[in-house]
């Protein structure tokens, strides 16, 4: 052990996206010593890719909005299997978290009277998303980064954690390596906050970067924490589908918020063909009304393109499967048509959707002010994650906290666009605050050398084997398999087959070799991430097998209805004593009467 550098912190935050940075800022404001490790450089986390905005009931653009409407929208979007206390806290605290960003230097787009402008988004009753064109995530992460670097936080960039250190059941730090020299590092901390983001790399078509291999999910699982809601994986309806290398890159929902429409190859606006009953009252029944809604007419109802993501994604899959798709196997998303409505439409589009304009022009030779884009669903977000206490964000394991995408609860069966950035801020702050309090109340734990030696040995194995299995190829096979067998449309036989394939792939992964040495070796990093991918893939598959119904993002072809018995339970995943993965059912606590009333009121 002594030959590895040891970093001593009160609070260690793993991950430097929105949740991690917000947690670190809060913890350091509480006066404790904070360290942040991040897999990439600072400011590059997936938060940067968030385009649409931060959902918060500021009521700047529509004064009818308040936290109660936001709460009921979030619950409806999550099909009522959300952790309702988290949804309540989120809706109540999001406005303050947004205003705080402004106090730290963020510059949002403005209303005519100089307030923060808010835009429409899928599933939100009123225009609610504070935004900066279509680069809100960049504004948010840069604001947090630039604020955070002056708070005395220790940053360890390009550093990946392999295991959480434990002492008598409690988490007391983490062990991992820095990429540049490949040296192992010990982080000794009184509390650890996981803020590692998502799992998108388990699927072939994803908007997520190489980093999102379910690290936090897997670290927590192996430390004994429960994962919850893992069956709920969000396939964002609009990802790029061409060129092949760009497949999966996100096309923001803001395109539809600005009036973009979805068309099949026959030019039919197919979203009008299937409007779920729960949304019928709130959805326009003609094109004209939908257009007026996007232009801020308060008496108009939203166009069906702005229904929840799970629903829109399924409608797209239906069109493609029934032979009405676009040339590259998606559908058309057209915002250029608004030139029929607005005098300077091209300028307007470039101003409101600059990144989209740029992205399509450069990567696909498509000018979105003149022609439609081709889009299809892409793995975007996981609603499931570490089960946490709503107030403190602490997991079942003492000293271990989680926030943001790697934590679960607020989103239920489907997340509304814009609720992610606000989730990162609200629960990042809470995690930082409570981790700091925990660190103040508890001493440092004892590091167990045997645990470190074991993790170190396992990490070095890929250099020592005599075989020829390539880590990238194992990863690719896993991604193909999950895409095919546990994707948007799921069936029991296919998922059972996925479990078999996972066993085979794990066996292959145990034979993976990498050439070269430990210095900035991407092949080695890919090999070390595989285990996390297997853990989350298995968790998703097992939970999806158990939920024999359709709800939100979970779509079972063999159980095509929603089943109310599943409306009051969540599936919990834990590691059993023998090392196997166990699924259990857990009842969702009954909704507080005042919250029930709010939901009724805004039905």
């Amino acid at each position, binding site marked *: 052990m002594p030959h590895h550098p040891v970093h001593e912190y009160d609070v260690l935050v793993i991950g430097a996206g929105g949740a991690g940075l917000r947690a670190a800022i809060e913890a350091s404001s509480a006066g404790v010593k904070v360290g942040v490790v991040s897999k990439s450089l600072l400011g590059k986390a997936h938060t940067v890719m968030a385009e649409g905005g931060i959902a918060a009931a500021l009521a700047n653009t529509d004064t009818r909005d308040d936290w109660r409407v936001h709460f009921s929208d979030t619950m409806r979007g999550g099909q009522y299997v959300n952790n309702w206390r988290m949804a309540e806290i989120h809706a109540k605290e999001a406005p303050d978290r947004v205003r705080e960003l402004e*106090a730290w230097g963020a510059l949002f787009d403005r209303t005519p009277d100089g307030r923060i402008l808010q835009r429409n988004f899928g599933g939100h009753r009123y225009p609610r998303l504070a935004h900066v064109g279509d680069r809100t995530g960049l504004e948010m992460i840069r604001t947090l980064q630039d604020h955070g670097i002056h708070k005395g936080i220790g940053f360890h960039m390009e550093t990946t954690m392999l295991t959480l250190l434990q002492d008598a059941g409690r988490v007391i730090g983490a062990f991992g390596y820095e990429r540049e020299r490949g040296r192992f590092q010990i982080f000794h901390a009184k509390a650890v906050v996981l803020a590692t983001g998502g799992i998108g790399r388990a699927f072939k078509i994803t908007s997520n970067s190489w980093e999102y291999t379910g690290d936090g999910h897997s670290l927590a699982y192996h430390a004994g924490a429960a994962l919850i809601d893992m069956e709920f994986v969000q396939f964002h309806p609009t990802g790029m589908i061409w060129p092949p290398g760009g497949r999966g890159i996100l096309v923001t929902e803001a395109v539809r918020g600005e009036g973009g429409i979805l068309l099949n190859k026959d030019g039919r606006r197919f979203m009008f063909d299937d409007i779920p009953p729960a949304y019928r009252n709130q959805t326009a029944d003609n094109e004209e009304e939908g257009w007026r809604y996007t232009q801020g007419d308060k008496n108009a109802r939203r166009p069906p393109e702005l229904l929840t993501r799970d629903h829109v994604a399924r409608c797209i899959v239906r069109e493609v499967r029934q032979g009405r798709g676009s040339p590259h196997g998606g559908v058309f998303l057209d915002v250029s048509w608004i030139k029929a409505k607005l005098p300077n439409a091209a300028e307007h589009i470039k101003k409101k959707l600059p990144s989209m304009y740029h992205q399509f022009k450069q990567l696909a030779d498509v000018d979105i002010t003149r022609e439609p884009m081709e889009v299809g669903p892409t793995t975007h977000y996981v609603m499931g994650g570490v089960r946490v206490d709503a107030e403190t964000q602490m997991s079942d394991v003492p000293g271990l906290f989680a926030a943001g995408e790697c934590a679960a609860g607020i989103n239920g069966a489907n997340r509304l666009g814009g609720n992610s950035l606000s989730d990162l801020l609200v629960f990042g702050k809470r995690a930082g605050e409570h981790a700091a309090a925990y660190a103040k109340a508890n001493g440092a734990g004892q590091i167990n050398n045997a645990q470190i030696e074991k993790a170190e040995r396992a990490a070095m194995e890929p250099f020592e084997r005599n075989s020829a299995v390539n880590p990238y190829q194992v990863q690719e096979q896993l991604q193909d398999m999950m895409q095919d067998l546990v994707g948007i449309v799921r069936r029991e036989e296919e998922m059972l087959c996925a479990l078999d394939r996972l066993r085979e792939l794990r066996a292959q992964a145990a034979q993976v070799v990498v050439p*070269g040495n430990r*210095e*900035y070796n991407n092949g080695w990093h890919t090999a070390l991430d595989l285990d996390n991918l297997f853990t989350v893939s298995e968790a998703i598959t097992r939970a999806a097998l158990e939920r024999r119904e359709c709800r939100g993002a979970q779509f079972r072809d063999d159980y095509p209805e929603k089943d109310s018995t599943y409306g009051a339970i969540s599936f919990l995943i834990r590691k059993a004593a023998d090392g196997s993965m166990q699924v259990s059912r857990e009842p969702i606590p009954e909704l507080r009467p005042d919250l029930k009333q709010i939901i009724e009121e805004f039905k």
Partner: protein
Amino acid sequence: MAQATFRIWRGDSQNGSFQDYNVESAPGMVVLDAVHDIQGSQAPDLAVRWNCKAGRCGSCSAEINGNPKLMCMTRMSTLDLSQPITVEPMRAFPLVRDLVAHVGSNYRAKKSIRPFKPRPPDFPDGTWRMHQRDVDRVQEFRKCIECFLCQDVCHVLRNHGLHEQFIGPRLFVYSAALEMHPLDTESRAGALKHSHGIGFCNITKCCTKVCPEEITITDNAIIPLKERVVDEYYDPIRRLFRVFTG
């Protein structure tokens, strides 16, 4: 499908050389796709940074045929495939390995810039009012994705290696965003002149030309900052004022 040869820099801070790899070029392919292809089958330990694949995160900066570019936004169709395509790391920074350069100096330089300091809130609820027209010009600077390509081409850094005396165009853009922020009350003119080396910039505009976000670095950020420094230091009344206040 066409064949393309990539001549990629392999090596660390001590030794290195270009190595050739053949790749099938498919329609719509970008340089980063080719690099991933090579990594996946021919050179698993090839070091490269990337995240978003969409020109949004600024991780994949490199020199392609000698031009500073984002690998994820450089289409193969814009390159002459009859010649080997060279890909090498940003040369203005120390090398880590292969295509990965040390960009830590930029993070250190940012920390030396005085942070945002807003005026007191306009309203008791802690909020301010700002108009879009006042926010527009700062929003241009805030588009920066920290790819550091501008730093890579600036001769003050690249040829003269003044990383510790000159913060470089990216950090001038950052300083300008703070200085022109409608709520900010801090002054950075002294630091710009004395420790951040704005005087070394002789407005060659090379930085502006390579910025993938098309930020008009020189005209909109650096020149106005230089004017602020002049106002602060060479304005006779202010100068007199400084004599008395120290």
